[in-house]
């Protein structure tokens, strides 16, 4: 609990600090405006007291001339205060609008930019919905807090303080009465708000449960129909829905009654102040010589004190009501801010690589670095020991030596993996789900780092290569194709931002995607949205292959890249795929054996080990596991 409190305090401070760092000038100005506005708004009570006192003195005589100018002077001063308040009010409202939106934007950018630098591990281990809710729910909660709760709380606190000061200035006794009522109000707030938030949490839980149920049934709606299961699902839904109703009814009821309660306690306070004020007035009237009032002003109690006091007590109650209304949103805002900061603080992907990939040309048999794109690439390898730089030509020779790996401690996924892939070779991996095929590709592009062993790329340890350059040299086509909102052309160009339209179209032709693209309503300019939901899975895979083709990398990794294309179409695409793979080192993962049959080497994997290796013919002749797979005696999943 205590830790929780300090972390809340810490978060609050950090939110304030962050906003100040975003707006080092605007924010203090806004704060000053808020303070001025709040103080000026609570001052009228003083003027009212003065004006009423004057009116009181002279209403019986009816002599306006005597006090008129004095009253008007007071009103004029009041008016000038009001002008100040209006200016400050206008200024802070405008400033806060700018600051809130600006801060949220910067916060979002901070989150997003940082997210781009997080290791893949983070995305594998964290629920995507959870990451998203930081951008949506948490940011929304923060908006509420910055734009409304913060200024409102500040104003309320200042108002309360100012009024409190004015109150003791006039009368201690009446102030004590007000204080007593305030304590009651705080007590009620705590009690009712506590109930309310407890039910709100339960409502949130029920809502989550209901959402889960709805989502599940909506996904399986066709199955529901096929099995005539409508009535049962209605009954189940009713149960969950009724529960949600109960919880949300209670939560809202407590939230709704807080205001009437506070308001009427305020009314009672008004009565009590009036009563005690009246008593004091009468007592004072009975002994006009001694002042029974205790106050800083030393004024005797009089109608001109009691009347403004009544108004002040109202304002006081109102401000407390305001504070209580903000409690919920502050708690939620802080929780959101905490989660946002936690996300921003996630450790980034570390990159200690120093070997870079550069364009090169060959002069007199020597590799020279150059600016323009030559089609020849080289690894630029600076040696710290003697300060020399050597260049190694990029050929796509990838070797794994005794690689071990584990995602979680003591749960090894790969054992002693040794694979040599020479330039231009096609290496295939087959095996059941969980055998570790995809893990190998994760290690090649250093989404994860190996635990033991070595991976060399053109003879260079991949740990020495800058991650960005390493990944640029590897083309990846993954089983789950991800497309981006944009045109088909944009999506292909994602592989190489500098590619011309023609190059993109050629890549699509190579991958066998050109045909279906031209049949789309607007060809290459067709807009894709929602992860290309208007395309079939097979078409998306073809686009994904085109994207890799336009990147033109020396090494390609195809992870179940054609799994959703039916075998007949695959056979048609195969020619393009062969053209694509020509001259490149290719790693292929597939569970459809027809896809990998013509590989140079096939690695059969089982529980993180390579159990068989060799060409298709060799493996068949061995009559081992591969043979069984091929003849359908084993299930690949």
């Amino acid at each position, binding site marked *: 609990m205590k830790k929780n409190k300090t972390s809340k305090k810490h978060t609050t401070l950090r939110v304030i600090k962050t906003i100040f760092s975003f707006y080092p000038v605007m924010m203090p100005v806004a704060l000053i405006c808020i303070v001025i506005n709040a103080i000026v708004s609570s001052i009228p009570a003083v003027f009212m007291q003065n004006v009423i006192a*004057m*009116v009181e003195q002279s*209403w019986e005589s009816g002599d306006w001339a005597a*006090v*008129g100018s004095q*009253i*008007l002077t007071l*009103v004029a001063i*009041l008016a000038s205060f009001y002008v100040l308040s209006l200016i400050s*009010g206008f200024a802070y*409202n*405008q400033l806060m*609008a*700018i600051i809130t*939106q600006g801060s949220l*934007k910067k916060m979002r950018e901070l989150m*997003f930019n940082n*997210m781009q630098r997080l290791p*893949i591990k983070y*995305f594998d281990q964290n629920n*995507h919905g959870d990451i*998203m809710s930081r*951008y949506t729910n948490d940011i929304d909660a923060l908006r509420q807090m910055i*734009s409304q709760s913060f200024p409102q709380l500040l104003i309320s606190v200042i108002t309360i303080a100012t009024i409190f000061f004015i109150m003791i200035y006039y009368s201690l006794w009446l102030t004590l009465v007000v204080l007593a009522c305030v304590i009651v109000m705080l007590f009620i707030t705590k009690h009712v708000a506590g109930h309310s938030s407890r039910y709100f949490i339960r409502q949130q839980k029920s*809502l989550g449960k209901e959402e889960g149920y709805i989502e*599940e049934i909506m996904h399986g*709606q*066709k199955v529901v*129909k*096929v*099995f*005539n*299961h409508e009535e049962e699902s209605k009954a189940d*839904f009713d149960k969950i*829905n009724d529960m949600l109703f109960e919880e*949300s*009814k209670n939560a*809202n*009821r407590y939230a*709704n009654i807080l*205001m*009437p*309660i506070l308001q009427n306690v305020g*009314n*009672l306070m008004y*009565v009590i102040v009036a*009563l005690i004020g009246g008593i004091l007035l009468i007592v004072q009237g009975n002994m006009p010589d001694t002042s029974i009032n205790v106050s800083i002003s030393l004024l005797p109690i009089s*109608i001109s004190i009691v009347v403004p006091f*009544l*108004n002040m007590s109202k304002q006081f109650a109102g401000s407390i009501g305001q504070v209580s209304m903000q409690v919920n949103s502050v708690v939620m805002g802080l929780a959101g801010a905490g989660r946002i900061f936690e996300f921003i603080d996630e450790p980034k992907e570390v990159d200690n690589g120093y070997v870079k990939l550069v364009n090169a040309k060959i002069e007199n048999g020597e590799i020279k670095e150059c600016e323009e794109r030559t089609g020849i690439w080289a690894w630029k390898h600076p040696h710290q020991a003697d300060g020399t730089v050597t260049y190694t030509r990029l050929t796509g020779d990838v070797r794994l030596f005794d690689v071990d790996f584990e995602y979680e401690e003591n749960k090894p996924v790969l054992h002693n993996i040794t694979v040599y892939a020479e330039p231009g070779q096609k290496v295939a991996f087959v095996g059941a789900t969980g055998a570790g095929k995809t893990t190998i590709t994760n290690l090649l592009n250093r989404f994860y780092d190996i635990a033991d062993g070595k991976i060399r790329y053109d003879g260079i340890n991949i740990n020495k290569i800058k991650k960005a350059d390493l*990944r640029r040299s590897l083309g990846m086509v993954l089983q789950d194709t*991800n497309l981006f*909102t944009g045109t088909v052309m944009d999506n292909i160009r*994602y592989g190489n*931002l500098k590619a011309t339209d023609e190059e993109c179209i050629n890549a699509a032709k190579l991958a066998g995607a050109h045909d279906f693209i031209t049949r789309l309503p607007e060809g290459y300019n067709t807009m894709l949205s929602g992860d290309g939901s208007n395309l079939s899975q097979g078409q998306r895979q073809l686009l994904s292959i085109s994207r890799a083709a336009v990147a033109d990398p020396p090494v390609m990794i195809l992870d179940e890249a054609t799994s959703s294309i*039916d075998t*007949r179409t695959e056979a048609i695409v195969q020619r393009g795929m062969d053209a694509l793979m020509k001259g490149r080192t290719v790693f292929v993962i597939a569970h459809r054996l027809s896809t990998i049959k013509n590989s140079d080497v096939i690695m059969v994997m089982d529980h993180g080990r390579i159990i068989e290796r060799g060409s298709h013919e060799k493996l068949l002749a061995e009559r081992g596991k591969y043979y069984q797979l091929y003849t359908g*005696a*084993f*299930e690949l999943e």
Partner: protein
Amino acid sequence: MIRKLAQSIREYKKPSILTPILVSMEVVMECIIPFVTARLVNRIKANCSLQEIALYGLALVIMASLSLLFGWGAGSTCATASCGLARNLRKDMFYSIQNFSFENIDKFSTSSLVTRLTTDVTNVQMAYMMIIRTAIRCPLMLIFAFVMAFVMGGKMAFIFLILVPLLGFGLFLVIRKSMPLFRRVFKKYDALNNSIQENVKAMRVVKSYVREDYEEEKFDRAADDVCRDFTKAERILAINNPMMQFCIYAVMVFVLSFGSYTIITSHGMDLDVGQFSSLLTYSFMILSSLMMVSMVFVMITMAAESAKRIVEVLDEKSTLSNPEDPVYDVPDGSIDFDHVSFKYSKSAERMALSNIDLHIKSGETIGIIGGTGSSKSTLVQLISRLYDVTEGDLKVGGIDVKKYDLETLRDQVAMVLQKNILFSGTIKENLRWGNKNATDEEMVHACKLSQADEFISTFPDGYDTYIEQGGANVSGGQKQRLCIARALLKKPKILILDDSTSAVDTKTDALIRKAMREFIPDTTKIIIAQRTSSVEDADRIIVMEGGTINGIGTHAELMESNEIYRDIYTSQNKAGDSDEEK
């Protein structure tokens, strides 16, 4: 639209009506209290006796208690009414969706249905709460406070006649200017969040193509755009507050100067000190309720979008209905397609199926094969009347499918869908979808036929193993076998397997087909498959291409005569593997 939504109020009519009544009474009390306090102040000023103060005090306490009572009551009934409406809306929508036909389901995406049932309902609930509570309270308060101000302040209250329209006009302008901006920016905001989601999902692609900087730039541009529009809209909205303050200050200044003047010159006849201070209270009431009215208006306009989306679902009529005089008995498992054509929507240009003429005898085993998009699934979905044929006739057991009671037909025509789904619950619970009253023996028998019993018995909890949502804790092949068992439990006359063994290894696949041949020989079996091995031993194989039947025959006949079949067969390249069916 409103009438449609109002139909869901039903049993919550009472609290819905009670709330405004209670609120009105609360408002009356709230408005009378300053009136009484004004009198009290005057009496105090006139040096009245303590008893008199106490009497006033008592009256005030009673009124405050009543006000509290009404306020409390209104808060409760309002919560009941609004949450009740939400509950009924969710229920009505869910029920309506349950009655959807496949065509209706295709029209709405799953995620949009989920949003409609959750977020949209919440928005309407909030708006309804506002309407029955604040929307009545504020105008009432406005009128009451206005009247009271006139009663108390006489001609002084004329200031409100100037200020209220002024403020009203100001608020109107603010809303008019900001609402379109807000509507636009919310769309952009959604798009921004969608692109974040896209990025999160595609992180592997982003990283493998080293596009982090590119993505950042793209995001910054979009975020800038959203921020600019949001700031613009918020800044317009931020004028409300100072505008309100201006009006209150104007009243204050006016009342203090002109009020003092009136009191003094009229010797307290036209106005007295007590009235003077309550006039200020009323002014605050009037202006703040005006402000609230404008906020409610904004809320309602924003909720209108949600309401529209909800009504869309409620208004959606199922495109399939039960016949007037339904047939409750399916005589046998024969199927006849008489020149059937079909398209998914009236506006579609191309027929998904054209001129299918196919006659299947009861007990026959039919294999269907063809590339993606050849309408294999469409063909079989017509049999259990998941869609209605566009042209031609479709008969099951010699009777037109449109004449059957839908439930009867679907019980007799069991279908294992391509995208099949298990629901969270135990294996037994999932199997009972096929037959509510299935005994344990029946379940085990069905699972043995679908070759699922073997792996179920290896689970520690056996048939009571809990299946997680979407069947996440069983493999694809296991899921398919469970789905087949579920369908077998219906003991149907026709069993359709739509690519239902794609993740099952060929050996098990063969065992399933063998079991079906032996144990349910009288059931008509239709098997859609990608692998030719799954259909080779069928009585007849249908080759589909572009929505038409390209060829019908046995494996041997098709190998001989059908080019597409031969192509598919060679692409899978199992020729010469004699061990395959071992």
